[in-house]
C-alpha cells in the first residue's frame, strides 16, 4: 500500500487526473510507466514519432488516425494528462459509476456518447461534424481488402452513407452515427478490461 502511494506521488497531478478520468490508482500507475517508456528521451511529453514507433500501430489500418487523436488541435506534443485523457475513453463502464455520479458534473470520458464521439472523430477528418461520403470511402479503403475494386468500394460507401443518413444531406452526422449504432453494445465493444 505504502509503496503504491509513493509511486503515485511521482505522478504529477495524480489526484486531479484520477478524478477526471476515473482510472484506478493501479491503472494510472501502469499508464504512467507506459508513458515514460514511450517517451524515449525523457522529454516529459510524447511526440508523434514516439507513438509511431510502436510496431503494431504501423500495420493497423487506423493507426495513423488513432495517433492523430492523441494530438488534438494540431498540437505536436501530448503530456501525461492528455495521454491518459484519450485512453480514458476505453475504460469499462461500471454501473455504480453512473448511478453515483452527480448529474451536474460533465459526463465521464468513458460514457457511451464519449466513446462514440471518439470513434466518430476517427472518421470525420475535416472535423465538420459530419462523415461525408468521401470520408466514408477513405475509411472503407483502409478497412476493406485490396481485392475489392474502387467502384465497388464506392458503391459500398454510398450504401453505407445512405443507410445512416436520415436528413438527406448525403453525410452522416454524429446524431445519425449514434443512431445507426444504437443496437450495439458500445460500452462493451469500446472498452478494454485492463484499463479499470
Amino acid at each position, binding site marked *: 500500500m505504502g509503496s503504491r502511494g509513493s509511486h503515485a506521488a511521482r505522478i504529477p497531478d495524480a489526484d486531479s487526473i484520477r478524478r477526471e478520468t476515473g482510472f484506478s490508482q493501479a491503472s494510472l500507475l501502469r499508464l504512467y510507466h507506459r508513458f515514460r517508456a*514511450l517517451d524515449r528521451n525523457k522529454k516529459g511529453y510524447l511526440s508523434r514519432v514516439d507513438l509511431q514507433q510502436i510496431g503494431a500501430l504501423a500495420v493497423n489500418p487506423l493507426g495513423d488516425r488513432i495517433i492523430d487523436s492523441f494530438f488534438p488541435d494540431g498540437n505536436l506534443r501530448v503530456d501525461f494528462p492528455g495521454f491518459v485523457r484519450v485512453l480514458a475513453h476505453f475504460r469499462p463502464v461500471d454501473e455504480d459509476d453512473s448511478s453515483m455520479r452527480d448529474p451536474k458534473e460533465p459526463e465521464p470520458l468513458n460514457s457511451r456518447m464519449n466513446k462514440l464521439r*471518439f470513434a466518430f472523430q476517427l472518421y470525420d477528418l475535416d472535423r465538420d461534424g459530419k462523415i461525408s461520403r468521401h470520408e466514408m470511402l477513405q475509411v472503407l479503403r483502409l478497412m*476493406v*481488402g485490396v481485392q475489392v475494386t474502387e467502384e465497388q468500394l464506392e458503391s459500398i460507401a454510398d450504401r453505407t452513407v*445512405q443507410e445512416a443518413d436520415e436528413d438527406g444531406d*448525403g453525410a452522416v452526422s454524429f446524431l445519425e452515427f449514434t443512431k*445507426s449504432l444504437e*443496437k450495439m453494445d458500445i460500452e462493451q465493444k469500446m472498452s478494454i*478490461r*485492463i484499463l479499470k
Partner: protein
Amino acid sequence: MLRAALPLLGLPLAGAAATEEPTREPGSPGEPPPGLALFRWQWHEVEAPYLVALWILVASLAKIVFHLSRKVTSLVPESCLLILLGLVLGGIVLAVAKKAEYQLEPGTFFLFLLPPIVLDSGYFMPSRLFFDNLGAILTYAVVGTLWNAFTTGAALWGLQQAGFVAPRVQASFLDFLLFGSLISAVDPVAVLAVFEEVHVNDTLFIIVFGESLLNDAVTVVLYKVCNSFVEMGSANVQAADYLKGVAYLTAEMASLSAILAVTMCGLGCKKYVEANISHKSRTAVKYTMKTLASCAETVIFMLLGISAVDSSKWAWDSGLVLGTLFFILFFRALGVVLQTWVLNQFRLVPLDKIDQVVMSYGGLRGAVAFALVILLDRTKVPAKDYFVATTIVVVFFTVIVQGLTIKPLVKWLKVKRSEHHKPTLNQELHEHTFDHILAAVEDVVGHHGYHYWRDRWEQFDKKYLSQLLMRRSAYRIRDQIWDVYYRLNIRDAISFVDQGGHILSSTGLTLPSMPSRNSVAETSVTNLLRESGSGACLDLQVIDTVRSGRDREDAVMHHLLCGGLYKPRRRYKASCSRHFISEDAQERQDKEVFQQNMKRRLESFKSTKHNICFTKSKPRPRKTGRKKNGLANTEATNGKPPRDLGFQDTAAVILTVESEEEEESDSSETEKEDDEGIIFVARATNEVLQEGKVSGSLEVCPSPRIIPPSPTCAEKELPWKSGQGDLAVYVSSETTKIVPVDMQAGWNQSISSLESLASPPCTQAPTMTRLPPCPLATEEAQPFHLPYDPRPSFAFPPSLAKAGRSRSESSADIPQQQELQPLMGHEDRTRLSPRTANSHWCIQFNKGGRL
C-alpha cells in the same frame, strides 16, 4: 396425432423384428415357412442399409408428426418427444421380439451418429463469439468437468460409505470416480437440442454450448484414465501410476479427442470452405450438414429411449440414483458459481446471477454419458448395471425434466434473450473500426491482450493462410464488409420477391380487407428493411413511413393492383403456348429482379432524400405536349379531391392496358417482354404528389410527412439494362411501375372504373386503347418484373415466395458481376436523378391522362 402415427410406425418395425428373429432361431413358431424362406434370404443382404433407412424413415416421420402440432413443440423440446417416442417404440419392439433390439451401440454412436452433430455445430458456431468467450468456455469445460467428475465420484463414494447405497452395489472408490467422470459431462446434443429452442442471449448460449462441446474431450480422457485404473484393479494402483495417469491425461489432451478435433475442424474450415465454393455449393453444404446432424440427433434420442426399455441391462438402486441426481445438480451449481466468481474478476462483462442459474440448470446429460456407461466392462466393474440404470435416469431426468422446465425458467428469470437484428453496413463497418481501435489502444497501453492477438491473427490469416487456402477470386467474398453489402442486396431482392408473393396471396379482391392484411403481414418485412436503412424497399416503405391515411390507401391500392394484376399473367402463360416460358426466361427474370434491385437502391435513395421539394417537372421530349395537357387536366381535377372521394379515387391509379394482340402487332421490339401479355401501369402515391406540384397553384405543398421518403421506390428505378441489346433502346429513367397482366373481365371493369375516376377527361376504355409503339416501348422497357413464373394455380403464395427466394438466392453468385455493373453505371445517373426522376413521374402521369 402421435398415437395415430404409432401403429404406422410400429408396423414395419414389428415386421423387421419378427423377420430377424427366424434367422437366428429357425422354425420359430407362427411364421409361414414357404414365403419366409425367400424373404429370409433377401433380408440378410439388405439388413444393414434397410435398418438404417428404416430408422431414418421413422425419425423423419416422427419429426413431421411432432411438427404438425405447434402447441406441443413450443412447449416440449423435441428431444423429450423423441425420447418418449423411443420408449414407446422400445416397448413395442420388446413386446414383439421378446427381446430388446436396436439399442444405442457405443460404436455406432461415436463413429456415425456423433460426428455429424459435432461437425455441424462446429461449422455453424459463431466463431467470433466463441473466441471472444474462449477463456470462460475453456474454464468451464476443463476445470468444471474435472470438478464435477471428482466431486460427484467422491460424494457418491461417501454416500456408499455412509450406508445409503445398498451393499449389493459393489463399487470401489475408483469405480465411483469412473462413474463420476462419465456422468459429469454436459452433452452437446442435449444442450443444443434444448437451447436452440430457448433463445437465450448469445453469450450465455455460446458459453453453455461451447462448454458442452469441449468438455467431451475432457470427459472421454478422464473416462479412459479411470477405466484403465479400474482395469488394473485398485489394489495395484501405486502412487506412481497416478503420476502416469496424469501424464497419460496430458498426452491424451494433447492428441485431443475426436470430438474436439471435429469441432475445431468445423470451426476452422468454415471460412475457407465457404470462400472457395460457389454460392450454390455453399447452400448444399449447409443443408447437407444440417440434415445429417438433425437425422443423427433424432436417431440418438430415439435409440436412447429404446435402450432404456431393456430391463435386463439395468439394476435399480434408489440410493445411488437419487444421490447421483442430487450430486450432479448440486455440484454443477456449486462449480458454476465458484468458477464464475473467478472468471468475473477477469471478464469485461461479468456473468450475472441469472446467467449462472441458467448455466447450472442447463447442464444436460445425454447420449455421450449413456454410450460411455454401456462401454464399461462388466467383469471389471461389477456395479455396471447399477451405473447404467443411474445414467439412464439421470439422462432422462435432465433431458425431460430440465429440458421441459428451462424455457419457463428462462422466461420467469427474464434472462436476456438473443435479439436478432439484421446486420447493417454501418454496424459491420464500425465494428471493424472498433476492433482496430481497440487493438491500437492496446498497443499504446502496451498491454498485449485479446484484441492485440486477434489483430495479429487476422493479419497472419490475411497474409498467409488466406493466400494458401483460398482461390484468388474468393478474397473479395471473404471480406466481411463486402459480404454484408452483398447479403443486403440479396435480401432486398428476396424481400421484393416475397412481397410480391405475399400480396398475391392476400389479394382476394376484397378491398376492405386489404389494409389490415397488408399492415399486419408486411410491417415486419418493412421494419427489417427500414432497419437496414435501405431505400430500396419498394412500396413497403410507403406504407410504413407515410402515416397519412390517403397515402396508405394509395399504397394499398398499389399493392392490390400489383398483386391482383399479376395473377392473370400466369393464366396467360398457361393458355398460350406460343410464348412458352423456358427456364431461361425464368432465370432471366430472376436476374432482372436483381438488377432492378441494385439500381433502385442508389437511385431511389438519392432521389427520395434530395428531391423532396422539386419545383417543376421536365416533360420528356418524346412524350409531348398533348399528353401533358391531359395530365395537367387530370391532376388539376384530381389532385385535391381524392381525400374526400374515398378509396378508389385516392388511389390515383393510372393504368395502361394493352391487349395481347396489339402488343404483338406493334411491338417487334418488345418480343423479349411479350410474355407479359397485357400491361397495366399502376402508379400510386406519387401521382398524388406530382399533382400537387404540377397544378402548383391550386395545391398546397404536401407536408414532408406526406411525401413518401422513397416515393414507392419500386417505380423509381431506371430500366435495367441486362445484356439484351434490344432492350437498351427503351432505356428511360421513367419511374414507372408496370405490372403485366392478362385480360380479365372483372379486372378490366374495376380498372376502368378506377381509371375513369382517376382521370375524368379520359373517355376511352382502357382495353380499347392502342398506344403508339413508341410510348409502349418505353413502358415495356422497365416492367416491374415480378420475378417468378406465372403459374396456373392461384392459391399458393408462401411456396411460391419461397421458390422465388431460393432461386434468387441460388442465382445470386451468377449475377453478381452483372449486378455490379448496373450499380456502377448507375451512379452517374443517380447524381442527376432528383430532377429526372421526378420529371418522369409527370410523364407517366401524362400517359395515364391521355388514356
